[in-house]
């Protein structure tokens, strides 16, 4: 279905060179994020069975988030002549759009919410922030970074920034670069 839809603002039409060049990468990334979201939802449901009926995946937002990420990547590539995108930028920019377009949603009524224990309430309220951190760990495996405790500190800062609405992708990428050695795993 994806190849019949013009990507979000990045492509003028299906015959355009940009569409042809990036459509496969776009589709692959879309499937990647969707797969990780499903796995994350399963993990949450295993950890807290009481939340199982209340965790939903918003597939439309996955499409919007990945499309907006590709807008950024293609802008960097074509307008700023940047030839490679390091995985810290992939993580930071993808996290931004997944934060702004929540992938994991809480689907719960008033009474059911207040019947949950405090720990479950916290998890449910912050579920998309937690998924965003999971996505960063997916793109930058913790076992590959210089210092996993430093990574935790950075992720903790991202959590705070997302909660207060000031997460910013350039700043995030710069912070992640301090812990991630260049290893050549790059693309858009």
């Amino acid at each position, binding site marked *: 279905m994806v190849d019949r839809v013009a990507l979000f603002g990045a492509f003028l039409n299906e015959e355009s060179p940009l569409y042809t060049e990036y459509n*496969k*990468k776009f589709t*692959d*990334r879309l499937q*990647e994020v969707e*797969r*990780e979201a499903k*796995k*994350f939802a*399963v*993990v*949450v449901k*295993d*950890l807290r069975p009481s939340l199982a009926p209340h965790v939903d995946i918003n597939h439309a937002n996955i499409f919007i988030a990945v499309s907006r990420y590709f807008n950024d990547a293609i802008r960097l590539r074509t307008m700023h002549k940047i*030839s*490679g*995108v*390091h*995985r810290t930028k*992939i993580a930071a920019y993808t996290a931004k759009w997944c934060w702004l377009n929540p992938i994991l949603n809480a689907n719960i009524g008033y009474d059911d919410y207040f019947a949950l224990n405090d720990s479950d309430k*916290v*998890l449910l309220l*912050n579920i998309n*922030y*937690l998924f965003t*951190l*999971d996505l960063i*760990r*997916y793109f930058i*495996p*913790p076992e590959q970074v210089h210092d996993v405790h430093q990574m*935790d500190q950075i*992720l*903790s800062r991202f*959590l705070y920034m997302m909660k207060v609405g000031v997460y910013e992708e350039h700043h995030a990428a710069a912070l992640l670069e301090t812990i991630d050695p*260049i290893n*050549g*795993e*790059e*693309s*858009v």
Partner: protein
Amino acid sequence: MADTEKPELPPETISKLCSDPALKAEVSLEIENFSIPYVGRDMPNEEKASGLQRSLDLLLG
């Protein structure tokens, strides 16, 4: 210096930067690898669960 004026790097500095082997290696690595598609890794559910627990610890302080 007026706002519109831009400081210029002396030519020898630019030349030195361009000939720095470490910098060249890094730049060519980026260009060389751009065409390699990012292959999503297999992130096991156990790793996801442990990451979620760490994130919850960060969240709850």
